């Protein structure tokens, strides 16, 4: 059975909430939680960590005596310490009215997606006042309004009446999340359950929200249950950790002990999959590219200095070993006068008055991997799509091997289309559910019109083989595949035409961290094997040293930093990059 977190982390008297042998099953009888235990102490934050499907949200909601439609409580207790008297109460044996009294009062909840959880037809001030009224906080309305202003200040929002009268849609994502926290904090709860409250926020906002939560927990002695999949965030906020896998807690303990001396093999595997900014950890089996394999040759790679002046040549330690052997044959006709394979010049794009991309200059040499880093709204996906010809409304030029390409993919020649391939962010969206794997992967071959049916089948099988999927996958449909397998299929589709440039748009952001590691691993291997150049678009700076030799930082449609990955990370030139690096949670 699972490890008894309660015994290892808290003394019997210190806890404010204790879950014991909590079991939850679907109405159909399938067990979701197999009897897990954990305990929360005032002023401390327990992080419940797990990948998708581990049951962490179900466990969090159970603390409030809430089970989503289709789920039922099958065993175990949740004891919460009584507020005014000795002893404790089992939340799960309370009737609905009793649970209601606790919810929002003694135990509160901060939801994952504030955009969905705030009532769009109610002003934010009223939504917070509602919880105060329901729990009879204060004697008069004036007192409650005073609390409302106070709690808004506590979470770092404006507290004037005009702000209170705003509608949820008039706030940014980060502000909405802080309203959610204010609502949870309004009645001064003893326990706060936070369900991935920073997912979907950019790192700067995430840092602010984490700071707010940490401050509140410490200042007001609140016990926190922080549900997350992000181990770096855990290191940042938690005092204790419980690691969940498929409905069980497999390891629990002090944050330092679990993160730095993990006992359970799953924890170790999870930790080894987490990318780190320093690139010390090796995620996957292939070594990080940056240090050992500077593909940009110090002697011929002058292209660098033209795009990023002032950059020193890559570290002298770089040997030629990694120079992509496979591309050498294609090299002579594959580059332009400056030695660049792909070059983007003064690319601009605006929607109305909104300048999405503002004069982008970028170049990729053969076999090179470049990371394009940007937060949501920076224009990174738009730029990637302009290069791939999926967005033809831009000004400026995209050239491949010295030839300027038409803007739209339909206006490019077949061979130009073959040479630039694009992998989409979500494998749940990029494969038609009604096509088999073979049917999806053969589309590019079919469109080239050069191959017979049998040839296509062989090439598809080879493509799947390249992404470590066997021929048994040929006739499956996406519905029968996991997220990681789907992304491999999508990569195979991009590879069958042997591209010279692969554009990867946030290809790992929809995947769990361990799957992300395997995909990164695969991409690196493929790049070495085939010698293609790669533009890896992401918001996750921690991946930088694991995938790219050079790093371009995009902010509001402009490239603000560009250079060899290590140099940019260690010596960021632009204030934005400096700020990003300062806010990245790390372990």
């Amino acid at each position, binding site marked *: 059975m699972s490890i008894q977190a309660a015994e290892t982390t808290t003394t019997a008297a210190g806890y404010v909430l204790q879950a014991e042998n909590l079991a939850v099953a679907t109405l159909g009888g399938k067990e979701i939680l197999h009897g897990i235990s954990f305990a929360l102490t005032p002023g401390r934050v327990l992080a419940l960590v797990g990948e998708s499907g581990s049951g962490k949200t179900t466990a969090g*909601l159970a603390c*409030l005596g*809430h089970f*989503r*439609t289709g789920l039922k409580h099958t065993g175990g207790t949740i004891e919460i310490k009584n507020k005014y008297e000795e002893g404790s109460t089992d939340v799960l044996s309370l009737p*609905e009215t009793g649970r*209601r*009294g*606790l*919810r*929002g*009062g003694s135990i*509160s*909840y901060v*939801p994952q*997606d504030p955009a*969905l*959880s*705030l*009532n*769009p*037809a*109610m002003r934010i001030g009223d939504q917070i006042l*509602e*919880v105060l009224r*329901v*729990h009879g906080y204060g004697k008069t309305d004036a007192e409650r309004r005073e609390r409302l202003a106070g709690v808004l200040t506590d979470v770092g929002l404006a507290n004037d009446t005009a702000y209170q009268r705003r*509608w949820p*849609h*008039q706030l940014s994502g980060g502000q909405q999340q802080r309203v959610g926290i204010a*609502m949870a904090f309004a009645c001064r709860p003893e326990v706060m359950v936070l369900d991935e409250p920073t997912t979907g926020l950019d790192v700067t906002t995430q840092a602010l929200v984490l700071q707010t939560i940490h401050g509140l927990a410490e200042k007001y002695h609140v016990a926190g249950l922080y549900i997350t999949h992000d181990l770096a965030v855990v290191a940042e906020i938690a005092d204790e950790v419980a690691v969940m896998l498929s409905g069980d807690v497999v390891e629990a303990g002090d944050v330092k002990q679990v993160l730095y001396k993990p006992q359970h093999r799953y924890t170790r595997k999870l930790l080894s999959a987490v990318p780190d900014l320093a690139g010390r950890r090796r995620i996957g089996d292939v070594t990080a590219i940056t240090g050992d394999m500077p593909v940009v040759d110090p002697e011929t790679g002058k292209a660098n200095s033209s795009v990023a002046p002032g950059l020193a040549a890559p570290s002298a330690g770089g040997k030629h070993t990694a120079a992509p052997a496979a591309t050498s044959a294609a090299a002579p006709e594959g580059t332009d006068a400056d030695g660049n394979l792909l070059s983007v010049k003064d690319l601009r794009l605006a929607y109305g008055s909104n300048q999405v991309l503002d004069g982008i200059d970028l170049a990729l040499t053969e076999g090179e991997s470049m990371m394009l880093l940007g937060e949501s709204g920076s224009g990174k996906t738009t730029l990637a799509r302009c290069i791939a010809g999926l967005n033809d409304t831009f000004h400026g030029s995209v050239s491949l091997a010295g030839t300027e390409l038409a803007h739209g993919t339909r206006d490019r020649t077949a061979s130009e289309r073959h040479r630039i391939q694009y992998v989409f962010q979500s494998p749940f969206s990029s494969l038609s559910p009604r096509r088999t794997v073979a049917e999806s992967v053969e589309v590019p071959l079919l469109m080239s019109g050069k191959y017979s049916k049998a040839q296509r089948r062989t090439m598809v099988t080879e493509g799947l083989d390249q992404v470590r999927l066997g021929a048994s996958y040929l006739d499956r449909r996406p519905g029968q595949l996991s997220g990681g397998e789907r992304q491999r299929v999508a990569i195979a589709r991009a590879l069958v035409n042997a591209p010279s440039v692969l554009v990867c748009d946030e290809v790992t952001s929809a995947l769990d961290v361990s799957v992300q590691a395997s995909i990164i691993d695969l991409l690196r291997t493929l790049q070495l094997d085939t010698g293609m150049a790669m533009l890896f678009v992401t918001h996750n700076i921690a991946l930088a040293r694991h995938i790219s030799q050079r790093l371009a930082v995009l902010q509001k449609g402009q490239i603000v930093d560009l250079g060899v990955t290590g140099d940019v990370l260690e010596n960021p030139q632009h204030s934005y990059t400096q700020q990003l690096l300062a806010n990245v949670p790390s372990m």
Partner: protein
Amino acid sequence: MLKLITRRLLISLVILFIISVLVFVATLLLPGDPARAMLGQQATPERLEALREQMGLNEPAWLRYFSWLGGLFVGDFGASVTGASVGELLGERISASLVLMVAAAVIAIPVGIIVGAYSALRRGKAGDHTASAISLVLAALPEFVIGIVLITVFSTTVFRILPAVTMSPPGQEVWEYPAQLILPVLTLVLVVMPYIIRMMRATMVEVLDSGYVEMARLKGVPERQVITRHAVPHALAPVAQVVAIQLAWLAGGIVVVEFLFRYPGIGQALVDAVANRDVQVVQALSMLIAALYIVVNLLADIVGILTNPKLRTESAS
């Protein structure tokens, strides 16, 4: 917000205008000569010519269109094949039909909304299953089937307590014999209500599963307040749409029901006019019903704008 509503209003007017063109052009396709149709085969060429002149048939089509359209605005709907003014012919019938429609709407809308909401709140329980099954069956049945079943049960074979057809003599108001209204109204209610029930249920189920309703529960808000403050306001706009469609449907469905019960309303008039190829009457009634549809839909759109703070605030700034 005003800008948004004005825009909808303008679109509605344009649609109404296009419909008027369509309705008018349709009559141009009509084979034969309206003047001959009125005067019969024996008419002399002189008389035909005189009538054509009088009816404006010699004018170009677009001119006739505008004089027809102008007439609609001042309440002149043209003349029927019988020579009588269409406006006079329909005046009484319109009020008779309105009685039927309003009575059906007043019953069907609130009952439909309440039953639908009840179903959603008791999802999966016996009451929900019963309501869903009944509304599913009723929604499938054409109105004349429901009407005939009601007649069979209440006025012929089983009970014989209600009149099967309208009895009031011409010239008398239909509501002076309330008993004769019961079956037609009940038929319309049974036809319209299932859609409102089903839509209300579906909308409420969706709203009850939403993040903000779950959040309200997790804040400890009492269930009654969760429903009245957090769920119902979001269900109003989609239900207003369905109610609008159903009201508009009433305008069409009333044709069959009036014919079945020999009720002296516009539906009956329309069927007679079609059988007699009385173009002016068909035109006038088509325009009337289309106008009703557009007005009701416009109202539903306005409800949608008013209940959505995003739409309400966006154009204000």
